[in-house]
């Protein structure tokens, strides 16, 4: 529902914002959150569903964003075995790194669908846009944490990390 609301905002009111701020990846913080704080099965299902919703609100060929966000989800998941982002700084750094990675991965995924562009194409990696995406992402990431706390959702760390499996 949160993703649905953010997508709604992004597609209707946000295009009116200045171009720099309009370059905001709405799904990234949610996918990173699913990768870090949800189980593999739940996270993957959520990632697939939300990325499909995202694809249906874009002119990109169906599959580009699903493959892209699935990759981001897997990276976030793998990273979680090394760094479980729980402090403000670690969450922000994680989102910043994955925002940057996202900008590099998307052209490659798009190329697999036959219309890629260079990662160095003008405007593809704008430091300010990446920073903005990480900042907004941080807010949504924290809000998801608050929502989880309100609904008393048990974080994955409490389930998996205590088993000594990681």
């Amino acid at each position, binding site marked *: 529902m949160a993703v*649905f609301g953010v*997508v*709604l*905002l*992004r*597609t*209707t*009111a946000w*295009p*009116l914002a200045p171009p720099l701020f*309009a*370059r*905001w*990846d*709405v799904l990234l913080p949610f996918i990173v959150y699913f990768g870090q704080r949800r189980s*593999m*099965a739940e996270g*993957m299902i959520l990632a*697939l569903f939300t990325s*499909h*919703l*995202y694809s*249906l*609100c*874009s*002119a*990109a*060929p*169906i*599959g580009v*964003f*699903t*493959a892209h966000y*699935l990759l981001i989800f*897997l990276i976030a998941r793998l990273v979680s*075995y090394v760094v479980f982002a729980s402090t403000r700084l670690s969450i922000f750094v994680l989102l910043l790194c994955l925002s940057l990675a996202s900008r590099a991965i*998307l*052209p490659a995924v*798009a190329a697999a669908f036959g*219309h890629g*562009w260079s990662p160095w*194409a*003008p*405007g*593809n990696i704008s430091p300010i846009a990446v920073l903005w995406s990480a900042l907004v992402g941080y807010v949504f990431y924290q809000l998801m944490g608050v929502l989880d706390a309100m609904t008393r959702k048990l974080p994955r760390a409490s389930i998996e990390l205590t088993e000594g*499996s*990681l």
Partner: protein
Amino acid sequence: MPSDRKYAFFAFVTAAVCVLALYIHRHRQGQTGRIDNLLISAAGNMQRQVFFFSQGMRRISDHYVMLVGVQKRNEDLEREISGLKLQVSALREVDLENTRLRESLDFRHRSEQQLLSAHVVAHDVSSDYFGIRIDRGSSDGVKVGMGVISPAGLVGRVLRVAPRFADVRTLVDPNSKIDALVQRSRARGIVSGQAKQATCKMSYVDRLEDVAVGDAVVSSGYEAIFPKGILVGYAIAVVPSSTGILQNVMLRSAVDITRLEEVFVVLPPGEPEKTT
């Protein structure tokens, strides 16, 4: 990671890849399923409300808040209108002459294509692609591949259709391809969008063709997707290929996609006309 978790991880990844492959195959050529239609309808209905609200807010901002320089702009426009009135008068003469000549040569009048009016209800969720959602769908006779235009010029083509909404891939999208002509020299080429930039590129133009900065580029009318002569954009740069026989023409789109509010879907001849 213990081995059972490792296996589970790879099983999930394999399952996800399989699901992804099936899902991409299912959605080729703009096909949509029931779940897609449900999602598009749910999103579209809410997007319509929020979009109209945000457009209203923008109008208030444009009309009542940002009035600085309006007087000067008004004077400039009045001067421009005076010049245009003269041009219209001259063109009216040309039109009458054209009609007389056509009649004398017994040419068939160009058939007017039927247009279906639609409101834009949402823009693309990603900043890498350029699409719009309109409030007309398959129940209004909209089909995948139909052309979409606006009074300012060519907008794009219908990408996917749900019963009450349709998604349009605009001409500035990286996947867009539109057959076009340079109005002055009739040089032909394919106009495609450029990723990350709200500009277009006209490719496959013969290097010997006469194209200059400022030239208007219009639709060719090929396959009757768009009426012939719809404005696509203006040449902002001509880039000859370092090798080969072709040149590229960079274009500024005639339509500002971010400010579009109303568009028209071009119906093939024989489709019933519907208006809002």
